[in-house]
Structures are given as C-alpha cells and as structure tokens.
C-alpha cells in the first residue's frame, strides 16, 4: 500500500500520536494502513547481545516484561514516563520511534543505547542505526514505502551495569521539557568500562553524547567527572523555546538532568550484583 500511495498513505499503529493530529486536521492522509493486527510485528525475544522487539508490541506489554526489564532496564525506566496507562496500552514501541518526537522517551532510549531499526518495504529490508534513523523533529530517514518492522536493543553483558531515566515535564505524563537517560558499566574496581548517555527535548532529534561519554572511561565516576560531562553535553545541545520552557531553561535542565542520570546509573551499577 505504501509503495502504491506514497505520501498520501500513512501507517497507523497505536495511534496515540497520529490520531490527535488527525482529529485536529493537522495531518490528513488519504489512506491509513493499519498494522496493528500483524502478529509478526508483536513479539519480544531476548538473545545474547540483543533484545528484539516487534514494532507493534504494545508499550504496556514491554513494561511488564520481566526478561526485558533485566536485559534492557532502560526500556522499563523510560516507559514509566510515557503518558498514562491508556496511552501505553495502545501505543507501540515502533510507533513512538517512527513518530520521532525529539522529546519522547523511547526515541531517547534508542539513541542512547544505539538501537538498530529494521525497516521493511516491498523491496526488502534494511537496517539503520538510531543515529541515522532520527533525522529531525518528527522525521526519520524512512522512505515513504518503508515500515519499521523490528527494533534491536543492545543488551549490556557487563555484570555491574546500571541505568537511569528521568525527565522534567510539567504534569505527570506530559511531554518532557527535557529528558535524560544514561547507562554505565563498571569493572570490579569501580572504574567505568562503558558509558552512554543522552538528552531528549534538547535538539531536533534525541541526542546521544558518545564522545563525551568516552572520556568517562577508565576512571571512577567521581562527581566532578559527571558534572563536567553533564556540563559539556548541555553546552553542545541545541534546545528550542516554546510556551512552557525557554532555550536557557532547557539548557539548564539538560545539565541538571544529565548529571542526575549519570549519578543514578553509577549508583545502580555499584550496587548491581548480576
């Protein structure tokens, strides 16, 4: 259907982002391609290094999945901030990613962890890294005839791994003004062996800071190192202004929240006994 109708057809999964826009007549696809009933898109399988999730798996199902919570803890942490119960009962993992709201939780988790998106079209499949997938506010690099089919979430095998997600929204469940996510791994001596963190709502896409994170490796995660990393990330990001938050306020929140998730992820890694 997508190949035939191109831009005048739109995929609909959970509809939690798309239908409000249609109700307000901001988006008017001539055709809706409903992928909710495609069983092959609704699965979760954890393999050694990867958790594979079908694009149409409901967010609430992912939230309740114990295996996923162990292997990709950032997912459940991120989902706790997504909307409300009703939103998560219908919203899908793939839907949120494809909608690509730069302040949304799942896109941030995907960016930080470097998830891989498997895209399918009539011509076949291709894989995009999160970095390549998110191309701008509410836009992805998907072609008009492609559908997000599966998402591969990296599983960190390090024993001492900790992750954290936080955001500042005005009300519980609202769009984040700024969101932050972090995951770190420590060796037996408490030195950081792996780190990833990022910000949502601070640019045109969810942002990850691999270069800044790389500088955390090899040493203990002292407060100063964390503050510096958070400060640099805040300087680098490019937040916008809107009714609820100015650019300056967002930049400030970016620094504060990046610091908080790094500290929390660090604390959890220290306490981890996996």
């Amino acid at each position, binding site marked *: 259907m997508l190949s035939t109708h191109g831009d005048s057809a739109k995929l609909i999964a959970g509809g939690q982002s798309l*239908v409000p826009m249609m*109700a307000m007549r901001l988006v008017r696809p001539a055709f*809706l391609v409903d992928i*909710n009933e495609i069983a092959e898109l609704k699965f979760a399988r954890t393999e050694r290094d990867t958790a594979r999730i079908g694009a149409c798996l409901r967010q609430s199902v992912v939230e309740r999945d114990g295996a996923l919570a162990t292997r990709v803890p950032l997912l459940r942490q991120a989902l706790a901030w997504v*909307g409300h*119960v*009703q*939103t998560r*009962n*219908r919203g899908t993992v793939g839907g949120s990613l494809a909608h690509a709201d730069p302040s949304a939780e799942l896109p941030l988790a995907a960016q930080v962890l470097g998830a891989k998106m498997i895209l399918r079209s009539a011509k076949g499949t291709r894989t995009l890294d999160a970095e390549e997938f998110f191309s701008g506010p509410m836009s992805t690099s998907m072609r008009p005839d492609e559908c997000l089919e599966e998402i591969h979430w990296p599983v960190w095998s390090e024993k001492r791994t900790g992750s954290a997600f936080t955001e500042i929204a005005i009300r519980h469940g609202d769009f984040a003004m700024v969101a932050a996510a972090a995951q770190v791994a420590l060796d037996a001596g408490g030195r950081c062996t792996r780190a990833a963190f990022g910000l949502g709502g601070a640019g045109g896409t969810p942002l990850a800071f691999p270069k800044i994170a790389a500088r955390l490796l090899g040493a203990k995660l002292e407060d100063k190192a964390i503050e510096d990393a958070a400060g640099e990330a805040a300087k680098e990001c490019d937040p916008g202004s809107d009714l609820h938050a100015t650019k300056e306020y967002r930049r400030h929140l970016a620094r504060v929240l990046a610091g908080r998730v790094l500290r929390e992820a660090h604390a959890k890694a220290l306490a981890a006994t996996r």
Partner: protein
Amino acid sequence: MSDKLHEVSIEVNGKARPGAVPARLSLVDWLRDELCLTGTHVGCEHGICGACSVMLDGEPVRSCLMYTVQANGHRVTTVEGLAKPDGSMSILQDAFCETHGLQCGYCTPGMLIAAQGLLNSNPNPTEEQIRDAIGGNLCRCTGYQQIVEAVQLAAERTK
C-alpha cells in the same frame, strides 16, 4: 473523504455487535451514536482527558484515539458493561456512590474503567498506584480525593 463502509463485528459488553462503518468513524462515536451506548463521553478528542476510556480486550484505552475498524474482532467493555450479571452495580460502582466519588458524572465512566483496570491487575493498590492509574483521567469536580477513597474502598470490599 471515502464513504466506503467496512464490515465489522465487535464484542461490546459481552455481545457481538456487527456494523458497517466508514474508516474515519472513531470508536467512541460508533459506541455512542450507532450503539446508543452514551455512557462513554467525549471531552477533548485529542487523547488527554480520558473521558472516553473503555476497555479493549480488558485494558483501558482511549476510544477517541481508535477508529471503529481497528476494534474489529476485539472485545470492548464500556461503563454499561461494568454492572454485575444480575444488573446490579459492581463493587467499584457502589463504592463510588458510597464515598461520593463523582459530582457531575461526566468523567465518571472513564474513571471507572481506569480504576477497574487497576483493580483487575492489582487488587491491593497503594494510594500512589491509584493516582497513577487514574492519572490519565481528568476531573474538574472532585479534586480526586473521594475518587481515591472509592477505589480504596472497592479494593477492601473485593477481598
């Protein structure tokens, strides 16, 4: 806009209900206008207020954000379907009456669905969990206090 009608069969409150609906017809509009189940209410049509909440396959969802065709083959429960088989009020509905967890009644059907959804999966919720479960249902009359008390009372009485 397409006038094409799609055949559907949706189980609503335990009964199979057939229909022939345009693609653009939302689930809430079908329930209210075609099935005359006017207990489910419309408050915003953009997925925030929760007044339109119904159970889809036993889980609360916003029926203003679903098209009727998408519910084809699924089970829907509305406030009209919460009563006991003999037609009397459910424990939760009765608890709302006991604590006066409503005033104008407009948000109430959606609120009951969200609360019942919680109790179905968590029979012993904390106050925090109750507030979180109804966090997507806005009320302007009650300040939520007597609603929370109703859910707590229902949980107690369901034991």
